[in-house]
């Protein structure tokens, strides 16, 4: 079953087309990897889907319900969570409070919300840090915090923006394992990654963007052999 359907989604900033008629579909329970060079429009695509930035035109359907133009909090309440490339933890609140704030979307009872938050913190392996302020956590731990916070809203679809970006090599396998654990728990995932090896390892499908345009969509193998994708990453012979 299709969980997300995006059609002709566009957004310009001045004369620059950050997203230009992007279209794709995501099946429930799968992982879609989004790749592309810097400035390809990957994070903008997340901003448009989550209502963080208003799209100029297009259509976004979540479980066949049109969510185009809805406010970010309404979209979140429908079951779409996200993490940010530039991390946005609530620095002056503890890890537990950060995750509890997400839990309140579905659970209004403060004790139950707290229990649920603790369960999720345990899931992301940060239980010992639960009373630490977010500002005291390392980058890798903050990435886990953002994942935990996004999970707390019980998303059906989770958009993850460069989860492995900016963390040390030792931390990456744990984060990848966490993404796979999330998929196993039934969450559909769209993930932006610069690390092609990871994308190819975990994704069911891959969407390649370049200069705001969708240049390829298919299985990891198809994408690996797509000439346009290779050119956009490595450059063409002419360009060289």
């Amino acid at each position, binding site marked *: 079953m299709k969980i997300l359907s995006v059609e002709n989604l566009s957004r310009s900033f001045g004369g620059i087309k950050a997203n230009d008629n992007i279209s794709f579909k995501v099946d429930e329970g799968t992982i879609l990897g989004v790749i592309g060079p810097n400035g390809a429009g990957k994070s903008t695509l997340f901003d448009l889907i989550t209502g963080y930035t208003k799209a100029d035109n297009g259509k976004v359907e979540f479980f066949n319900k049109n969510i185009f133009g809805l406010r970010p909090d309404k979209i979140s309440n429908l079951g779409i969570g996200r993490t940010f490339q530039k991390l946005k933890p*609530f620095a002056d609140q503890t890890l537990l409070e950060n995750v509890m704030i997400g839990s309140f979307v579905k659970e209004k009872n403060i004790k139950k919300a707290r229990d649920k938050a603790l369960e999720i913190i345990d899931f992301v392996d940060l239980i010992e840090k639960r009373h630490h302020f977010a500002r005291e956590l390392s980058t890798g731990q903050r990435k886990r915090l953002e994942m935990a916070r996004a999970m707390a*809203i019980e998303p059906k679809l989770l958009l993850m923006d460069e989860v492995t970006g900016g963390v040390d090599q030792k931390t990456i396998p744990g984060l990848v394992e966490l993404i796979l654990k999330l998929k196993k728990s039934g969450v559909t995932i769209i993930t932006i990654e610069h690390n092609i090896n990871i994308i190819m390892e975990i994704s069911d499908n891959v969407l390649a963007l370049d200069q705001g345009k969708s240049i390829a969509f298919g299985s990891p193998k198809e994408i690996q052999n797509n000439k346009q994708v290779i050119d956009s990453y490595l450059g063409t012979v002419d360009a060289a």
Partner: protein
Amino acid sequence: MTSEIILQAIITGLMMGLIYALIAAGLSLIFGLMDIVNFAHGEHLMLSMFSSFWLWSLFGLDPIFSIPITILLMAFCGIITHYFLIRYILKAKMLIQICATFGLSIFIRSIAQLLWTPDFRNVDKPLLEGRLEIGSVFIGQPQLIASLVCLIAFIGLYLFVTKTETGLALQATAQDRHAAEILGIPSNKMFAIGWAIGLGCVGVAGGMMANYFFIFTDVGINFALFAFVAVALGGFGSIIGCLYAGIIIGLVESLGGLLIDPSFKLLYVFVIYLLVVIYRPQGLFGRY
């Protein structure tokens, strides 16, 4: 000078300080939430005092009993202020935001002068009267009860902000409204709640002060000045900072007036403020 006189000044300063703290907490909450300084805070305090006065004058309700109505009226005033003015200037430049709330202060004060004239009024024979005598120290009952009510309201506000779902959501919105929205928190609603609580605090302070203060259209000006100093001293956006700062201001005002010269009470407070601005611009507990 005897120790009793100094003790008297300390108690007077503490009692005033708790009132300053609550007024400042309302101001700080609004600033911390949306980075907007409410220059009409003093006028809102004046409105809450007039609310108590008119409820007494027209319906015979003593200020101590009309407090809940005053709080609700001020909270409603906060929501109206947000939806009819503030939400339109949220993304505006700081100068426009300053002009908007400063303009609101002039508007409220002018309307009040038009409707109620600049005359001084007071609540005649309120239930809270008289004074307690402990040794050689005298404590005015209305002042004592007002400061205790303000302290209770302050504790309630602190617990609300730190322990409840809405309080945590308010804190999250204050830190990063966009990240909060992604977690399903409607920022516009949070801002309205922030204004309601901020002016509700002023409602408590103003309602209690109506017991023993003259009520007139310019009454809020000095209190607002002290509230601004308390917010800066405590740290912009810090609720707990307001408590310490309010008490410091109350004590400096009272002890400075006793030990040096009462004519320069404002000066002592602003000297402390300037020292903080120079040596610790983020205030005692501030993030900024």
